[in-house]
């Protein structure tokens, strides 16, 4: 067991980026499952629909940026279809009961992603190790994604406040 909070090797960095990519895949897949769940319902709040569509698109975009880094580290990403199947398998047990629950789920997604990238940036900054890929490129990418997750938290909070 290690008590360090540093990212010291290519392998460890690749693994953490893989986890980030899976988190994005989970967000994307859950957002589409939420959208499917109220496809036939009337009176669906357009703000909520837009929010979920935007979240899914943004996650796909984040994932592709992470995948590019992972590939440069000679590692692979778990294909989206595989994660989608896992989300599918557990979704019935974990899906929100109503729109407020759904927004809360979305808020958790954005906050979790923010926290993940924030911790990862901190762990890389705390390490003086050099990686086989440009360290600044990794940090820039992660900081940018972190910023977009922070905006995501704000967007969900605004929709929640409008509905309150």
């Amino acid at each position, binding site marked *: 067991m*290690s008590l360090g909070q540093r990212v010291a090797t290519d392998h460890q960095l690749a693994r953490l980026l893989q*986890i980030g990519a899976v*988190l994005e895949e989970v967000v994307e897949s859950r957002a589409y499952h939420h959208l499917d769940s109220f496809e036939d319902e009337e009176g669906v709040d357009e703000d909520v629909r837009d929010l979920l569509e935007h979240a899914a698109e943004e996650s796909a975009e984040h994932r592709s940026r992470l995948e590019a880094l992972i590939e440069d580290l000679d590692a692979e990403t778990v294909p989206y279809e595989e994660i989608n199947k896992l989300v599918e398998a557990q979704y019935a047990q974990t899906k929100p009961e109503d729109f407020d629950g759904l927004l809360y789920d979305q808020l958790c997604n954005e906050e979790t992603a923010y926290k993940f990238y924030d911790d990862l940036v901190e762990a890389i900054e705390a390490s003086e190790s050099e990686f086989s890929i440009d360290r600044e490129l990794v940090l820039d990418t992660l900081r940018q994604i972190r910023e977009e997750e922070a905006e995501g938290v704000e967007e969900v909070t605004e929709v929640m406040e409008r509905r309150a």
Partner: protein
Amino acid sequence: MNTADQYLKAIYLVQRMEDGPAATGALADMLDVSPASVNEMVGKLQDRGLVDHEKYKGATLTDDGIVRAEDALQTYCIIERFLANVLEVEDYRGEASALEAVIDDTVAERLDTIIDRREECPDCFDAEADQCCYLEVAAGESAD
């Protein structure tokens, strides 16, 4: 998972294995730190009411400490299960130990939405084997 939670989890596991207080040496071995570091942290945990420490015997979790340790062990279990079953990492135990300090509980909760974990977790965690006794590792290609 923060350092305090890693210590609480280690005390919990050593207590289970020893069926008694967790000795400083055993904790130092499990956490790969010096006995002096263990004593310092155990003292802090005692001040926070999470651990009782008896000289020459070792540390015992209080009720509050047990709750925190079980949460930490659940988080660890999620990480291990995720690495073994989703990323198909061969050395999932070693990597879970290395990553637990960087993976926050909220992140583990999200990962938990795609893994299959039993309700009795963490009671089904085998301390000796350092993994859930129900964890099945699929033979397949790793995402390395």
